[in-house]
Every structure is written in structure tokens, then in C-alpha cells.
């Protein structure tokens, strides 16, 4: 029953896409407003059908309906409720269903937001493209990736349960949906970019239409990636947060091009420049999200994450090819119309900084992409299996990352068009001095290599510059309006949310960059064989193996070791690294136990459970500044939220008298001159 209803919902969703595309296509051809409005409504039908399909799947998971193949493979009677619910995205078919739902949601929100422009050809074309993408995903679910596939033969009494890695932690609930809210969101600016190319309306309109959606998607993707790192560190227990694993890279690649995009569009809005860059970046971002799904879900690269193998590979590859070639073809077709009215006037200007930004991010993405797909290409051509080791990625991306850090610090100080050395000196002198002092201090007190010194120095340079901008802005506003500090800060933000929200995001980036550099240079790892009651000294801490215990549930068997951690005479508590084995699985999962401190983490893993002689092997890592990765991620999320605050450029000093009309709300684009509260 559930299966039938589920398949019906998916079929309804696919039909809604087809009907919508047809109606909108006809409406555009005949310039019929009524058809366009009808076609637009199919987006809402799609949403309802998608919700129904997901509802059916969740019902099947929660009630342990093992007549469905998907439920039998990803759920068991012993599975707790939370992990039954999160089982929706435990493997391929369900995650395609989730993708379809999120896409339907984004399309519906966009359609509703632009409801007054239903007859605008650009909106109609964008809706067609969006529906076409949705059609692809729902069509796959009617074919090779059917989530409602019924088990052949007798219904099993119990399912095999989800992959143990996916049951270990509640974070499982948030990491994939966050990533999907990011990935899928980029379909919206992509569809508008294609629409603008098709209609020939290549000005900045499509940017304004999609700006907020792009930022929301970017925010979610950023949080999703940081959560992935957190999960890797706290749950998977291999001791790090980023392994350049192909699936990690799959999430990073669209993030890189999307970050370049959200910066580069500012140049197009302000001066109509970098149009081809922007179109290319958004098309590349969309294609990379498809590539990412292909890599993650088709099992084509042997990786920690390849939870499933499937025959959908060729489908995705085809869709990817069509999207990429279609995008490139459209850009080539409109080539002559894409020449920008403006030019880069001087090398030291905000425009050239954004251009440099694009080049650096594009290079970064290329380096990661090459390392990720190279094994695929080799295997396809030569038949040999291989992998690309970490050092390639580390060595190639560190210089690019440092260059980006420098640019992030210096670019906000560069005015548009051209500038004198005097302006830059005034804005960057103090931050540069502090950066230099930090570099010297790092060399003297910490040692470490050039990468570390540069990372700390540039981080200090950037952080000081940001703090300076914020302080100058608030002070200027307070002088003009006499407001108190909190109100002035809020007013300053609302006058230019993108700038100040963006600066906060940059502050988060500095935290993350510094933490990565410190971790890379100063983290230590040791393995100790300890008997019960035995202590050892590691990196200034004393660890004592107290006892171990075994806990058996229906779901799993867990061996836990109790370890006391002390620093000098201070007792930091008892931590419990563990190893769990699951009844239906041949593998066991280690769970680390982490003592998180503001400057250092003590990271404990149970490498081997007690031997017959009662000895354990305990892994102890002392990792510096790791908590600042998560704090940095939070700051980036906060900054994104701040950047999304609606702008309001009122100067209260002009409207002191009660009842006086307020200045009208500002348009979304930034004005040439900084408003009250902008850069001094």
C-alpha cells in the first residue's frame, strides 16, 4: 500500500514537471499570460507530490515496513526513532527523494516570491529549467533509483539496519539535510542564469532576483561542510576533520565556485563587469553539485563515504554533460552580448581584487577537482586503480589558501575604480603592523614552518582590518546620529548588511584558517599500551586507564574504556572512548572521546579493546585550537544571517521629529558612496 502510494506520488511529481514545462513553453511561444500563470502553479503541485512521497517513505521507515527494499536495507526493528527518520537519507534512493523534496521547496518559494512577475519571460524560463532539473530527479526515482521498490519474495522479518557509521550520533540528523539545502539551492541562480542567456536579458536583473537564495544556499552549504568536519572529528574517530576524501571534496568544490560567485556578482551589480565569469561560476557550481552527487552516490570512487553502489552513474553523467555543455553553448552563443560596459581601471582597485579572487578560487577548485577525478580518468583509460595521496592536496591548496587570506584582508580596503596609496595606507597600516608583529612573534615563540607563520600573520592582518572597519563604521554612525552603541551597530548593519555581514563571515574564516594552521603544525599523536590503573604522560596531560566495561543492547555491543585526564593537579574528568560492533555487520566502529578546551583538545581513542591480560591500546592526540574551527563555522553562519537582514538606509538624524515621514527603504544594490556607517 505504502509502496503504491509512494510510487504514485513520485509519478505525480514527475507529471507536474512535464505539465509545467509544457504549459510554460506554450505560454512563452504564444505569449499567453494565462498559460504562463497555469504553468507556474504546477510548481506547487510538485511540492505537494514531493511532500506526499517523503511522507510515505518516513511512514514506512518509522513503522518498519520491511516489504520495501529500501526499508529492509536501511532500517531494523531495533533502530531508534531518530535514526529511522534520518534513514530517509541513509542511502541512494532515499537521498534522491530528499533532493527532490528540497528542490521542490526551493522552486515553490521562488515561484511565490516572484508571483507578481509570473508573465515575465525570464521567470518563466527559469521555472522551466528548475522543473527540468526536478524532472530528472523524479524520473530517476521512477527507474533505476526507486525508493519504493518492493522486496522480491517474502517480506523479511527484520531489516539489516542502517550502516553503523550512520547510527552513531544525532548529528546524522543534520549534516546531510544541511548539505542538501546548500547544494540544491544553487539550482535557483543556475536556472535564472540559463533563463537570462536564453532570453538575451543579460543585465543584472537575474542577479537581483536570486541574490538572497544564493546566499541562503551558500550559508547552508558552509554549515554542512563544517558539520561534516565536526562529525569526522568527533564521531568517526580517525583523529582529523578533513581527509581530502573524494566525497568531502565533492562538497567543497561547489562551495569554492559559489564563494567566488557571491563575491564576483558584486562587481557586476556595481559596474556591470565580469559577466562571463559570473555566468560561468554559477553554471559550474550547479554542475559541481551534480558531479558531487554522482561521486557520492554512484560508488564510482572507493571512498569512506561510498555507502552504495548503483547503476545510476551513467544517468548522472549524462545529465552532468548536458548541463555543462548546454551552459557553455549558451554562453558562447551570447558571447558578443556579454561584453561589459566597464573595464578594470587600475590594478589596485576593488574590481581587480574581485578578479584575482575569481582566479584564485577557480584555481583552487581546479586543483581539488583534478586530484579527485584523476583516479577515475586513469582507471577509465588504463584500467589501473589508484588514489591520490593527501600531500598533493595539502601542498597545492595551502599556497592558494594563504593568497586568498591575504586578499580577504586587503580587498575591503580597496576602493572602486582606482585609488591613491594614501587611502590604502590609512586603512591598512595598523592591520599590517599587527600582522607583521604576529609573524615575528610566531617565529620567535612557536617556531613552525612558513605556512604557519604566514597563516597567523595574515590572520592577524585580516582580523585587525575587519575589527577596524567595524569600529570605524560604528563610530561614524554614532557621530552622525548620537545613538548608543547597540543601536548604532544595528543601524550600521541595516544600512549595509552585505558589507558588515560579510565582514563577520570573514572573521569566521580567520578563526578557521588559524585553527587549521595550528592543527597542522602542532597536533601530536601517541599510542599507549596501558594496564588497568596505569598512567602515562602525554603533551602535558596525564591519562590514567581506570577500567573498561561492555554494554550490550539489541542494537549493538559497546566496549568502553574509562580514562581520567589530568593536567598537573587539575582533574579534567573521565572520558570514555569506545568501540561498538553491530550484530548484522562485519565491521566495528570506534567512537572517540574528546576533552574540548579553548586552546587544546585531548582526543582519546580506543585502538584496541582489552586483551586477555587486560591491556588496552589507547590513542591520545593533543590537538590545538580545534574548537575554533567550530566557533569559526558558527561565526560564518551568523555573518550570513546578518548579511540577509533587509537593508534600511534611514538616517535617524533626519527624522528626529515624531511623525516625520521616514526615508523609503533602499534598493538592494550598494550605492557608490558609502552611506552613514560605511568605510571611512
Amino acid at each position, binding site marked *: 500500500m505504502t509502496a503504491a502510494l509512494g510510487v504514485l506520488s513520485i509519478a505525480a511529481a514527475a507529471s507536474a514537471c512535464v505539465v509545467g514545462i509544457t504549459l510554460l513553453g506554450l505560454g512563452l511561444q504564444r505569449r499567453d499570460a494565462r498559460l504562463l500563470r497555469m504553468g507556474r502553479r504546477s510548481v506547487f503541485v510538485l511540492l505537494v507530490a514531493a511532500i506526499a512521497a517523503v511522507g510515505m517513505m518516513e511512514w514506512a521507515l518509522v513503522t518498519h515496513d520491511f516489504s520495501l527494499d529500501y526499508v529492509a536495507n536501511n532500517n531494523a526493528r531495533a533502530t531508534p526513532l531518530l535514526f529511522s527518520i534520518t534513514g530517509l537519507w541513509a542511502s541512494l534512493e532515499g537521498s534522491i527523494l530528499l533532493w527532490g523534496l528540497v528542490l521542490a521547496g526551493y522552486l515553490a518559494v521562488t515561484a511565490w516570491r516572484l508571483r507578481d512577475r509570473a508573465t515575465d519571460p525570464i521567470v518563466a524560463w527559469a521555472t522551466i529549467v528548475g522543473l527540468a532539473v526536478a524532472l530528472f530527479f523524479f524520473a530517476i526515482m521512477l527507474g533505476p533509483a526507486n525508493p519504493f521498490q518492493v522486496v522480491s519474495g517474502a517480506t523479511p522479518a527484520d531489516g539489516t539496519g542502517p550502516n553503523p557509521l550512520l547510527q552513531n550520533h544525532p548529528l546524522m540528523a543534520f549534516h546531510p539535510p544541511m548539505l542538501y539545502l546548500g547544494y540544491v539551492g544553487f539550482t535557483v541562480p543556475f536556472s535564472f542564469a540559463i533563463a537570462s542567456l536564453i532570453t538575451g536579458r543579460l543585465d543584472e536583473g537575474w542577479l537581483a532576483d536570486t541574490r538572497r537564495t544564493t546566499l541562503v544556499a551558500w550559508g547552508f552549504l558552509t554549515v554542512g561542510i563544517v558539520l561534516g568536519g565536526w562529525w569526522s572529528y568527533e564521531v568517526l574517530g580517525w583523529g582529523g576533520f578533513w581527509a581530502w576524501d573524494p566525497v568531502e571534496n565533492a562538497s567543497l568544490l561547489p562551495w569554492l565556485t559559489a564563494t567566488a560567485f557571491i563575491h564576483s556578482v558584486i562587481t557586476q551589480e556595481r559596474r556591470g563587469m565580469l559577466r*562571463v565569469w559570473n555566468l560561468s561560476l554559477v553554471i559550474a557550481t550547479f554542475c559541481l553539485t551534480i558531479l558531487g552527487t554522482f561521486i557520492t552516490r554512484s560508488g564510482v570512487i572507493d571512498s569512506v563515504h561510498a555507502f552504495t553502489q548503483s547503476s545510476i552513474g551513467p544517468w548522472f553523467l549524462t545529465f552532468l554533460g548536458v548541463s555543462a555543455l548546454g551552459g557553455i553553448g549558451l554562453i558562447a552563443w551570447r558571447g558578443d552580448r556579454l561584453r561589459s560596459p566597464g573595464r578594470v581601471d587600475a590594478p589596485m582597485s576593488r574590481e581587480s581584487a574581485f578578479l584575482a579572487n575569481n582566479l584564485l578560487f577557480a584555481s583552487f577548485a581546479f586543483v581539488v577537482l583534478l586530484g579527485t577525478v584523476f583516479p577515475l580518468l586513469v582507471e577509465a583509460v588504463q584500467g589501473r586503480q589508484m*588514489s591520490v*595521496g593527501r600531500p598533493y592536496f595539502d601542498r*597545492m591548496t595551502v599556497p592558494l589558501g594563504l593568497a586568498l587570506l591575504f586578499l580577504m584582508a586587503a580587498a575591503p580596503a580597496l576602493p572602486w575604480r582606482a585609488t591613491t596609496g594614501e587611502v590604502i595606507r590609512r586603512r591598512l597600516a595598523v592591520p599590517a603592523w599587527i600582522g607583521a608583529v604576529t609573524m615575528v612573534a610566531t617565529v620567535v615563540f612557536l617556531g613552525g614552518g612558513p605556512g604557519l607563520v604566514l597563516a597567523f600573520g595574515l590572520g592577524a592582518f585580516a582580523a585587525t582590518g575587519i575589527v577596524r572597519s567595524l569600529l570605524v563604521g560604528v563610530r561614524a554612525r554614532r557621530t552622525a546620529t548620537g545613538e548608543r552603541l547597540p543601536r548604532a551597530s544595528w543601524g550600521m548593519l541595516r544600512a549595509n548588511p552585505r558589507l558588515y555581514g560579510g565582514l563577520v563571515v570573514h572573521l569566521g574564516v580567520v578563526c578557521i584558517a588559524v585553527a587549521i594552521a595550528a592543527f597542522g603544525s602542532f597536533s601530536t599523536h601517541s599510542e599507549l599500551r596501558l594496564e588497568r590503573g596505569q598512567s602515562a604522560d602525554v603533551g602535558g596531560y596525564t591519562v590514567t586507564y581506570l577500567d573498561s566495561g561492555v554494554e550490550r543492547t539489541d542494537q549493538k555491543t559497546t566496549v568502553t574504556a574509562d580514562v581520567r585526564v589530568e593536567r598537573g593537579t587539575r582533574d579534567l574528568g573521565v572520558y570514555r572512548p569506545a568501540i561498538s560492533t553491530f550484530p548484522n555487520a562485519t565491521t*566495528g566502529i570506534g567512537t572517540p572521546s574528546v576533552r574540548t578546551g579553548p586552546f587544546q583538545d585531548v582526543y582519546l581513542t580506543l*585502538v584496541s579493546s582489552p586483551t586477555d591480560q587486560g591491556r588496552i591500546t589507547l590513542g591520545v592526540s593533543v590537538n590545538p585550537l580545534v574548537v575554533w574551527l567550530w566557533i569559526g563555522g558558527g561565526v560564518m553562519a551568523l555573518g550570513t544571517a546578518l548579511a540577509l537582514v533587509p537593508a534600511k538606509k534611514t538616517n535617524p538624524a533626519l527624522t528626529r521629529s515624531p511623525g516625520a515621514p521616514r526615508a523609503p527603504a533602499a534598493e538592494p544594490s550598494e550605492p557608490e558612496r558609502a552611506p552613514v556607517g560605511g568605510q571611512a
Partner: protein
Amino acid sequence: MTATTGRRRAPAIALGVLAVAIAAVVVLAFALSDNIVYFKTVSEAVASREDDTGRRIRMAGTVVAGSIDEQPDGTWFELTEGDATVVVEHRGSTPDLFEECAPLVVEGRWSSEPDGTTFESDRILIKHDNEYRAPDDAVPACPGDA
């Protein structure tokens, strides 16, 4: 691209960009080739041992029953696949699931000693199977059983 500088400077800038691009590609190619780690089964690795000396490779096989010898400075065991068996000297800890008959992948190099035939590994990757076998399914035979 849309952005251009003054006409006089355009050729110089283009040349500069080209030079940087070529340098970057060269660096990229070297970095990539230095870090390629081929994946071979035990029999493939043994067959290509001459070519692989000094190079880092991954080797997949199954641990032979009764061959595990844990010493303070490392763990010795035998890895087999197909017709070939190799003695592996592993430095570092072994994961909890390292046991007889376990299918796994070791990563490291062939011994550099002149007549050495052992494989020196520093990383063990236990093959995670996506498919979970129900307890009553047939278990593959364990190599080394008498």
C-alpha cells in the same frame, strides 16, 4: 574575459599570466605524480615488485590464519590473495578489527633491503563492506586453515 587593462599593457599582462599558468601546470603535474598510490591485489603487487621498488602502493588481500605475530616494534603477518602470499611488517598500531582471515588493504612500500621480500606497511585499511551479511549467510573460507 570581460575585464581588460590599457591596450599597451595587455600583451605584457597576457604573457605574464601565461607564464604563471605554465609554471602552475608543471608544479601541479609533479605534485600529482609524486602522490599517486596504486592499488593492487597481492598477486599483482608481487608480479610488479621490480617496478614498484621505492614507490608507495596499496595491497589488498586476506590475513592468513595463524600468521599474526605481534612484537613490540611492529606486527608481522602474512597477506594472501590468489596464488601469492606476502609477509607484511606493519609499524604502528593495528585496528581493532585486524584479525585472522580479515580482508584488508595495507599501504606502504616493498622492503628496500637487497634481498628483502617483505612489505613494510604503515597503514591498514579494513575493507568496509557496504552489504551486511545476515549471520546465516555463507562465510568465505579462511585461508591458512588446515
